């Protein structure tokens, strides 16, 4: 562009690279730590080049887990977290798209009341109703179940609003044409609305998958048994600076494996991710 000198561009590259290094360093550090033996990790300064125990550490973590957490293998923690994240993402999309469909394409008494009932949940995040919600979960015997981890989190005002917004842009002629051709509400939904919503669904899926994967307060309350922990909660429980038995090499491997899946989703589905971020914040 006019006015940008060659040195200005070089400086821009330098600042960006510096920024990337700062942003990436903590992850690099943990990855390096995950390839060293436990005692080497806690003896500062830790070496900043990879150690020779990559395969050994990852195998031990993946199949045997941390002894101070009842030896739940990391594959189990990953499975729990994946079930929770996928359940939340799919659940939110399904119940939001049907709600938005009802609100936009039908006329019935109480329509706007229901819309507002859903909208107001925006103002009731888990954090402001922790104790009573916990009590509901206990009464329904949902502690330590996948249902308990997923179900209460799938109501979504944001996703409903997003689908509603999108459905309102669909021209009435399309509905009319479909009706003249004899399509009922199910056929219209399946053959016209769903294909049109594909990119919106993909964008929401990425955002909601990350939302589910990174949950903290809810799984902390909902899980007592070590086998039901999500990987983030398990990692938190493994770490202790006072306890000399903390298996640091397992901790570091778990940390890397907890970060990797959602990061891969963001990197590989970058277009959907960016779209999702921008859309859900409108």
């Amino acid at each position, binding site marked *: *562009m*006019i*006015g*940008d000198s060659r040195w*200005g561009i070089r400086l*821009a590259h330098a*600042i*960006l690279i510096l920024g*990337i290094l700062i*942003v*990436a360093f*903590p992850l690099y*550090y943990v990855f390096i*730590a995950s390839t060293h033996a436990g005692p080497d990790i806690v003896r*500062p*300064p830790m070496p900043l080049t990879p150690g020779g125990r990559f395969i050994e550490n990852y195998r031990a973590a993946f199949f045997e887990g941390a002894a101070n957490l009842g030896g739940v293998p990391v594959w189990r923690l990953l499975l729990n977290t994946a079930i929770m994240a996928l359940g939340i993402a799919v659940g939110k999309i399904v*119940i*939001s798209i049907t*709600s938005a*469909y009802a609100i936009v394409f*039908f006329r*019935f008494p109480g*329509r706007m009341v229901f819309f507002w*009932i*859903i909208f107001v*949940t*925006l*103002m*009731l995040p888990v954090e*402001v*109703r*922790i*104790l*009573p919600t*916990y*009590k*509901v979960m206990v009464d329904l015997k949902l502690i330590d179940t996948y249902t308990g981890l997923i*179900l*209460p989190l799938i*109501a979504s005002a944001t996703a409903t609003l997003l689908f509603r917004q999108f459905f309102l842009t669909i021209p*009435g002629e399309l*509905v*009319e044409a479909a*009706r003249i051709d004899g399509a009922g*509400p199910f056929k219209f939904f399946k053959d016209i609305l769903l294909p049109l919503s594909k990119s919106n669904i993909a964008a929401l899926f990425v955002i909601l998958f990350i939302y589910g*994967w*990174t949950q*903290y*307060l809810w799984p902390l309350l909902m899980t007592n048994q070590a086998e039901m922990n999500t990987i*983030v909660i398990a*990692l938190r429980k493994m770490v202790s*600076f006072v306890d000399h038995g903390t298996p640091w090499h397992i901790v*570091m491997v778990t*940390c890397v494996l907890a970060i990797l899946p959602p990061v891969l989703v*963001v990197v590989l589905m*970058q277009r959907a991710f960016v779209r999702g*971020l*921008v859309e859900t*914040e*409108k």
Partner: protein
Amino acid sequence: MSGRVVFPNKLLPYLLLAPQLAITAVFFYWPASQALKQSMQREDPFGLQTTFVGLANFRRVLADPNYLNSVKVTAVFSLSTAFLALALALPLAVMAEKVVRGKGIYRTLLIWPYAVAPAIAGMLWLFLFNPAMGTFSYLLRANGVAWDPLLKDGQAMGLVVAAAAWKQISYNFLFFVAGLQAIPRSLIEAAAIDGASGPKRFWTIVFPLLAPTTFFLLVVNTVYAFFDTFGVIHAVTQGGPGKATETLVYKVYNDGFVNLQLGSSAAQSVILMGVVILLTAIQFRYVERKVHYG
């Protein structure tokens, strides 16, 4: 909207809405109403008897020095986090808009922390900076800095702010890039032809035109720091040392689950609800319009 073509079914829309409504009723409205009720009750420690006490819980909470401390901590924490995350992301976004080669790679390498759980972001920083094994603590102390975030208030706050802001850089970066792309090139080029230097162009044209984006991000970052950083606090400092990093959300959890003060915790929840309503109102009233100020 009244002229919209719709399907004539009468029962179907209720069935379509039913799952979402059932979940909101059981897991949102019922617990929220319970929080309201409990906030006006006092329960004995064994949970055998409850008495209606009106607004006494609120009066007690608002007069409690620990609560007021927590309000201050939350304000400092939220504003520092928002400011730091914005201040780091803006130059990166401006630079990313300047370069042509490697743009995509830079973007990919800057956005991934969005996917890191706040609690894990906290632990990453804790691994680097905890006094027992952190390499950076070692370096700091080797250079004569008395570094101990587990004992020193300011250092503990600095650590949680750094971790919380680190995770948010990627988000702000993306929105700043989008904001920068919306600024007409012709304006900047005209200024360049008139001889305005790079920094001058930035502060007189780019920065003011970016104000709506910045304001939007300020609100979003504050909300993030308020509610989504429970994990950072819980994983890194647990509110300590003393109560130096006890944010409002952490205090609700701590008083309810650890100290079992139900009435007080419920009253705090209700106050937080008020805060959320206020922030949501601000978001919808002012942010949605995306206007330029001046």
